[in-house]
């Protein structure tokens, strides 16, 4: 509904009521397009006051409408056109000629939802950002959330980290940083990827306290409210179909810099001459050696002539395993999506039915299938009562393909594949690659009856069947009943049940199975295989059940110039999860049989010359738990004269956060807000400023972390070392003063519009104060509390503050045959730690790449700190730093004694300025848009060379070729010289030094859309009302970056996704 139209309706009704008298019971006419005067077929004409009486225009655009009562007003609508309402008077000439204008951008009357109530944006005091259907559907994707990337102001998607969505920057330090996701009325507990984007009507993002505090203790990180499509209250059955296919390019395996094969072999030869491998050659664990080292050993032992050695090494020098990864490991991805929905309504009943199917084949041959089904029905048995029932069903399956090539290892210590490995021979057969143990050892064991121990990376996934299935059922029931005096009772219940099960079948020929069987194979007293021949099957099952019950009383009073809305409610919410896993040995997938094994005996391991011992991995586990919440809430708003709105909300949350005193389990949170619609004031007579609204809010949101406890808590585990007994780890030290995190938010905003939609938007200013934030405080190791690989303590140790500006602007640059519209999003975000309980004085604990957290008072939560750099030593190419203000090479002392004050602060690690500019063009049936996104103001630490990983993990950065080699090189390079023996602290110092930091600013052309719309109605004869063909290209290009080291700062060290291109069709019947 458009604001303008609504006003128009009111005006006309008013006009009709005052002057108009009509006695006509029949109206005829023709509906035409205002732009090209073509007839509009399929336009709907209804009686404005009796929507059940309606006709549809024929192919000439003609209609004829009759009723038994005099016709006062008709409403003419047609898809793609603005709806028009016409008042009829006896003087009106017939037949009518009705010209409909094509839909263009208008200031819409936007309704925003919080999950508890809907509110017209006009009366909202808080910060709500709405992503409407059109913007949401601009992008083609399987999932929902990624469609907000680059179009929602102040919402940052950081692809470098796992939990990557932040609304208005981080509001916590080590607490949960993910926004709350609400589907319709309730938090969505399942995998967000279960939701079919074709079921989504729109999304509202709640940013400040007034908008989000109704969600209380889970609102600190902002709330994303997803609204699904619902049946409308009018009209006959409508069918909508959408289908598309997305083609994606392989990732660029050459993107991460890597040492050249020739250089790598050079290093191996140097190490060999130094005797580096001697220790490994004789080690009882038979550690794997690379082919070059094996050749060098053969040569040393006289089994290979010098000529042959050089010849063989020269051949290896010409290889690069990345060619094989590119050609044989990856493929182009293909995602298909099909969606269909039906909706319709009668007087008492309306329904919505949808189905969706997605079929994605990834670049690693992983196959993802998802089937969605949804049914929504609203029944109005009596006046004032509405019953809604809804069901979502999602079934998805993933059949995993190959592993990511970068996760391949050749030793359990995390050694990568050597750069001259070959995965395939000229005839297309998979080749074996040295892994885990020396080939001579493997061969020797094979001779003694062991299974072949070769590893064929390219073939391995053919022997492993890794599938997972997910079933998600969501049932939702709601009752709304209107009580007298403007009260309404609302009851909601939601049940969500999610089951996931997976199985990994390691076939009997998989390396995994052969390796495990071999390791346990015993030679004495007789040859035996404690792990039986056959496949190994891992199974896991998980179940997650959530129940929500909510009862709410709504109140609505509209009297004269007073408008009062209020609601009060309470809810219970319980989430119960359980999972278990099991394993079978000697499994025969054909007949589902397995063989019992001895889990008690410690078997000596063949790969350690029968020195180390182990028990057979049992793979049995069971875990479970329950999260519970009880909440009470209130929300109210009062508007006077349509000009001034005051809002208030309060919420009290309780949870079963562990071991906390009852009074601390419950936290009260509230907000207050006010807005002033200046442009509607009598005195405000601006002709050009069509909207001016000021808003101000204040309040508190919370953040809960149920993993913490006020008491000492321990976690039970199975299989202690040595004994195999159960044992416990301490998770939390006692912390009687544990509290929930709170964020105070002040938001001030202005909404404006100039010349009726030509230019407009909103500007928001906010100040956030995080209090009692959960954080890690480092501890003196003497305390003995060791958890999460650190001597540190997690509790309410920090405060922070942040502020920012968000601009969301639009301009209609051209209007007419060619439309050109620009939308611009800009977010400025700043934050700093204001308090942090800290025992450490050593600077090293705060050296940070800015992706992690280095909580230093006065600096951003994500700050880039490094150790000062004094260049390379001109004598020998050693990296140099500072110790007590003097140039030093005492790396251990530098790492341990550098104080916090001596660190180099570069800047924030997360962008401080970011957003997007989207231009949309339309011309006749064509429409196109492109989105440019940008991030500025942050820094990153580039990957660099570590001689330790080069020597031990076969993994070296390409900057090896630029290393210092002779005096004078220090003028051109910062890469330290190679020394032997290596000094790990020298590597560490170099990697943590200031010389690694780069500016992360960049601009990218994110995506482009193009579409062509056939208006079936207008063209006549076509069997649809609307048909749209569209194309969408994503991840197009990095247009500009500040760094000169060939790194796309948006993706950091991981390979940026390849370009994708989608084609699709969308139609309505």
């Amino acid at each position: 509904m458009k604001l303008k139209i609504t006003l128009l309706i009111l005006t006309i009704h008013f006009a009709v009521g005052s002057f108009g008298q009509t006695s006509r019971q029949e109206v005829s006419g023709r509906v035409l397009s205002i732009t090209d005067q073509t007839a509009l077929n399929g336009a709907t004409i209804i009686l404005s006051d009796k929507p059940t009486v309606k006709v549809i225009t024929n192919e000439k655009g003609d209609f004829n409408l009759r009723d038994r009562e005099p016709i006062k007003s008709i409403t003419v609508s047609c898809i793609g056109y603005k709806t028009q309402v016409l008042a009829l008077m006896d003087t009106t000439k017939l037949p009518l000629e009705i010209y409909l204008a094509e839909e263009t951008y208008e200031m819409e009357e936007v309704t925003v939802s919080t999950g508890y109530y809907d509110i017209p944006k006009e009366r909202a005091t808080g910060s709500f950002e709405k992503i409407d259907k059109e913007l949401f559907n601009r992008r083609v994707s399987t999932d929902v959330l990624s469609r907000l990337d680059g179009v929602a102001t102040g919402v940052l998607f950081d692809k470098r980290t796992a939990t990557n969505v932040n609304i208005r920057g981080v509001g916590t330090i080590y607490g949960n940083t993910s926004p709350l996701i609400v589907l319709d009325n309730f938090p969505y507990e399942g995998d967000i990827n279960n939701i079919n984007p074709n079921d989504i009507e729109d999304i509202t993002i709640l940013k400040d306290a007034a908008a989000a505090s109704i969600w209380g203790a889970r609102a600190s990180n902002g709330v994303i409210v997803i609204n699904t499509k619902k049946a409308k209250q009018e009209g006959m059955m409508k069918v909508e179909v959408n289908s598309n296919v997305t083609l994606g390019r392989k990732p660029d395996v050459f993107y991460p810099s890597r040492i050249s094969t020739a250089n790598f072999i050079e290093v191996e030869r140097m190490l060999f001459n130094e005797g580096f491998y001697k220790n490994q050659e004789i080690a009882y664990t038979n550690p794997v050696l690379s082919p070059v080292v094996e050749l060098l050993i053969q040569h040393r032992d006289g089994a290979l002539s010098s000529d042959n050695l050089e010849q063989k090494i020269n051949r290896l020098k010409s290889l690069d395993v990345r060619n094989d990864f590119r050609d044989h490991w990856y493929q182009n991805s293909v995602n298909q999506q099909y969606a269909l929905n039906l909706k319709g309504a009668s007087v008492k009943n309306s329904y919505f039915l949808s189905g969706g199917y997605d079929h994605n084949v990834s670049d690693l041959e992983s196959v993802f299938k998802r089937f969605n089904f949804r049914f929504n029905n609203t029944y109005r048995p009596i006046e004032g009562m509405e019953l809604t029932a809804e069901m979502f069903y999602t079934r998805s399956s993933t059949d995993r393909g190959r592993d990511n090539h970068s996760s391949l290892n050749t030793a359990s210590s995390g050694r990568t594949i050597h750069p001259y490995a070959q995965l395939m021979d000229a005839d297309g057969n998979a080749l074996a690659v040295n892994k885990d143990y020396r080939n001579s050892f493997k061969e020797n064991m094979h001779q003694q009856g062991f299974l072949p121990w070769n590893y064929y990376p390219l073939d391995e996934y053919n022997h492993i069947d890794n599938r997972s299935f997910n079933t998600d059922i969501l049932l939702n029931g709601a009752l709304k009943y209107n009580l007298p005096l403007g009260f309404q009772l609302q009851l909601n219940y939601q049940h969500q049940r999610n089951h996931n099960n997976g199985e990994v079948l390691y076939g009997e020929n998989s390396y995994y199975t052969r390796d495990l069987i071999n390791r346990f194979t015993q030679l004495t007293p007789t040859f035996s295989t404690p792990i039986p021949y056959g496949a190994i099957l891992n199974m896991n099952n998980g179940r997650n059940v959530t129940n929500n019950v909510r009862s709410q009383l709504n109140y609505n009073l509209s009297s004269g110039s007073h408008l009062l809305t209020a609601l009060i409610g309470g809810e219970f919410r319980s989430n119960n999860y359980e999972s278990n896993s099991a394993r079978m040995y000697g499994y025969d997938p054909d007949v589902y049989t397995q063989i019992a094994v001895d889990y008690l005996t410690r078997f000596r391991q063949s790969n350690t010359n029968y020195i180390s011992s182990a028990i057979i991995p049992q793979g049995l586990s069971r875990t479970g738990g329950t999260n519970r919440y009880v909440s009470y809430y209130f929300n109210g708003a009062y508007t006077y004269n349509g000009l001034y709105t005051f809002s208030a909300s309060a919420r009290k949350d309780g949870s079963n956060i562990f071991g906390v005193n009852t009074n601390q389990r419950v936290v009260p949170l509230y907000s207050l807000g006010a807005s002033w619609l200046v442009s509607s004031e009598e005195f405000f007579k601006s002709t050009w400023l069509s909207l001016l609204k000021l808003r101000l809010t204040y309040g508190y949101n919370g953040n809960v972390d149920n993993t913490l406890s006020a008491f000492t808590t321990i976690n039970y585990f199975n299989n202690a070392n040595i004994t195999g007994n159960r044992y416990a780890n301490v998770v939390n030290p006692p912390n009687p003063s544990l509290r929930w995190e709170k964020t105070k938010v002040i938001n001030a905003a202005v909404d404006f519009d100039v010349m009726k939609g030509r230019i407009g938007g909103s500007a928001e200013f906010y100040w956030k104060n995080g209090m009692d934030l959960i954080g890690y405080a480092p501890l003196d190791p003497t305390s003995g509390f060791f958890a999460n690989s650190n001597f540190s303590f997690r509790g309410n140790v920090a405060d922070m503050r942040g502020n920012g500006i968000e601009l969301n602007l639009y301009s209609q640059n051209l209007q007419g045959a060619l439309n050109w519209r620009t939308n611009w999003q800009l977010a400025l975000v700043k934050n700093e730690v204001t308090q942090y309980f800290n025992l450490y004085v050593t600077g090293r604990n705060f050296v940070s790449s800015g992706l992690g957290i280095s909580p230093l008072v006065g600096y951003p939560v994500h700050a880039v700190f490094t150790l000062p750099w004094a260049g390379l030593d001109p004598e020998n190419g050693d990296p140099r730093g500072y110790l007590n203000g003097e140039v030093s090479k005492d790396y251990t002392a530098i790492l341990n004694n550098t104080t916090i004050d001596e660190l180099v602060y570069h800047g924030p690690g997360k962008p401080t300025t970011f957003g997007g500019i989207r231009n949309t063009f339309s011309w006749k049936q064509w429409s196109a848009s492109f989105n440019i996104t940008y991030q500025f103001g942050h820094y990153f630490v580039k990957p660099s060379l570590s001689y330790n990983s080069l020597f031990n993990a076969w993994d070296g950065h390409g900057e090896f070729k630029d290393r210092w080699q002779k005096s004078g090189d220090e003028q051109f390079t910062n890469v330290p010289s190679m020394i032997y023996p290596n000094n790990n602290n020298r590597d560490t110092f170099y990697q943590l030094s200031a010389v690694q930091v780069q500016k992360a600013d960049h601009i990218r052309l994110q995506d482009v859309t193009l579409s062509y719309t056939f208006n079936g109605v207008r063209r006549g004869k076509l069997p649809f009302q609307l048909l749209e063909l569209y194309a969408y290209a994503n991840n197009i290009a990095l247009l500009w970056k500040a760094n000169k080291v060939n790194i796309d700062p948006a993706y950091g060290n991981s390979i940026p996704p390849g370009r994708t291109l989608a084609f699709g069709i969308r139609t309505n019947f």
Partner: protein
Amino acid sequence: MTSCNDYLDVKPSKSMTVPEKIKDLQALLDNTTYINQSSPISPELAADNFLVTDQVWNSTGLSVRNAYIWEKDVFNDFFLNDWSYPYVSVFYANLAKEGVEKLQGTSASQVELDFIKGQALFIRAYAFYQLAGVFTKPYNAHTASSDLGIPLRLVSDINEPTSRASVKETYDRIIADLKIAADLLPDKVTYATRASRAAAYALLARVYLSMAEYTEAARYADLYLDIKNVLLDFNELDAAKMVPFPIMHEEDVFHTCALTTGFITPSSGIVDPSLYSLYTADDLRRSLFFRIDADNKTVRFKGDYGGAASPMPYNGLATDEVYLIKAECAARLGEREKALSLLNTFRQKRYRTRINDGLVLESDQAVLSEVLLERRKELIGRGLRWFDFRRLNREQSTAVTLKRAVNGKEYVLPPGDNRYVFQIPLEVIASSGIPQNPY
């Protein structure tokens, strides 16, 4: 609100719990990673059992390299090190002990409570003793009250400030706790990873020996041998095996391992040839403890006394050590016959039966030398050699100057050198402000 509170009383995770039952406390003490695999490794690195070639030395990490040549910079490259790891077991022990205190006077079984408390006190004392051996001067009755000891953390409260006690306070605390533990613990237990009365006596004997209080050491060794005096008969072990000793065998009374390192794994450390030459052909340990590489030269240690239950070298308490403590004390206290008889019983199980006809020695000094030689040969790779240097260097007759050569450079460690006391990790000094050891 009451029903609402009940609703919120459910615990969020099944595997997570507040340690308030006896089984929880036992589970904490059964955390073998922290309790049994957390002993310092530096005593073995700094002693003279193992030799490191330049190549191997060059290819290992900083702390290991530096501990080997008695250099200053150690324990600064890992969070879990010779200082912090034992303190983790102290934390677990304190938690368990406090758990017992909370359960006193409830329906919990007193026997079980005593068992937990005894284990906790033992584990704490074991960690304190190991720390004292690495980070304080050797016990000297004349200076012990002024020599800097270790921080004695007696409560689990992580906010408790860290300060160093004196060496006397440190040893007093260890002994007092062990005596209480010995009263509370059962004679024997199911798993050698748990403490028992026998283990407490063994540790008391060891502690008193290092304090040169031979009467007390002998007393506790006797008390131990009253409970447990069976020695493994090495004649019955198979020297052809890569790992000749079974896991948790009958001598193993408290099973602990030292942190793993680059060059002393349970079965591949290279042994000093002069050490190997001490073993005569009839000494069964010659083939049970060692193997010779294919080069016919390099001697490697394979005699991990814990049966290589983990990739970390065994350094726990075992009956053989108690036998030798008792024999040494007897020799030092002038009970020559007693010492000799113990020594012969011991040798019966270590030498080939047919030629093992018993030693006859005429002087106390000769008996002592023979006991110390057996001690030298028996306790390889168990971290005890370093402690022996620290105590035996006090007497001129047994004092040694250690020497090393790495990459052509010679390192010398004379008796009584400051370097017999390791440096405390810099991080600890920085965060607690306690005084560093002189270097």
